């Protein structure tokens, strides 16, 4: 079970500035744990953002995006109170969505 994302979405002028932190190990598939067992590859491959149902960003990631990923972007057409929804999917098929109201 994954932990909630931290999403900040703030209106700045005519744009909405978004900052996201995601709890994800972004395992490369080469790391070994303390017992010497290889930790299987598991990383986010897809991430997308939508504002009131309209897609505002889509991204493809590989394992060289850092652990506990950070992502920031900006879009027009969002207003205070609008719902911003972020969704990611990883190589294990796990997926998570979190939603915030734009501040």
């Amino acid at each position, binding site marked *: 079970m994954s932990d909630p994302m931290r999403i900040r979405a703030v209106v700045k002028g005519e744009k909405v500035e978004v900052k996201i932190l995601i709890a994800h190990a972004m395992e490369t598939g080469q790391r070994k744990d303390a017992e*010497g067992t290889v930790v299987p590859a598991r990383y986010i491959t897809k991430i997308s953002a939508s504002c009131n149902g*309209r897609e505002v960003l889509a991204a493809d990631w590989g394992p*060289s995006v*850092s652990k506990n990923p950070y992502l920031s972007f*900006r879009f027009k057409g969002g207003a205070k109170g609008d719902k911003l929804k972020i969704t990611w999917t990883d190589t294990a098929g796990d997926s998570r969505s979190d939603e915030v109201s734009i501040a």
Partner: protein
Amino acid sequence: MFPGRRRLLIQLGRTGLAALTLASGLVPRLARAVEARPAFTAAGITDALKALGIANPAQSEAIHFRAPDIAENGAAVPVEVESALPGTREILLLVEKNPHVMSASFSFPDGTDAYVATRVKVAESSLIHAVIRTDAGAFYNAKLVKVTLGGCGG
């Protein structure tokens, strides 16, 4: 083995035996079973761009690319890209010296700024390329990031 990579190995060794192997896995050689997208398994810039259908991008100063000259830790190198090129559809991040160069791609629907900030793993001192796909073709800019050692080294 390049000196930069070796340094990183030493640096990552600080968390012990586990980390010695972690270091080699910092930038993985991917099993095809896990990764089906050809650009993400490409070994070099040329192959990656080929997989993406991009040929001979031109360098452009209209791509603002911010990354530190020196990274204290290759596990997370902040990068910030903003494209002033009209009709920018996509920003791609490629780390030249990583065994798999392709790190991430971001696509921007109308109304979203051609801007992204994120953090990537950089195995050794390397050029990081920001490749931009626009309606009028592909462009790039690049920045050299040195990966160095910070702490006690063990």
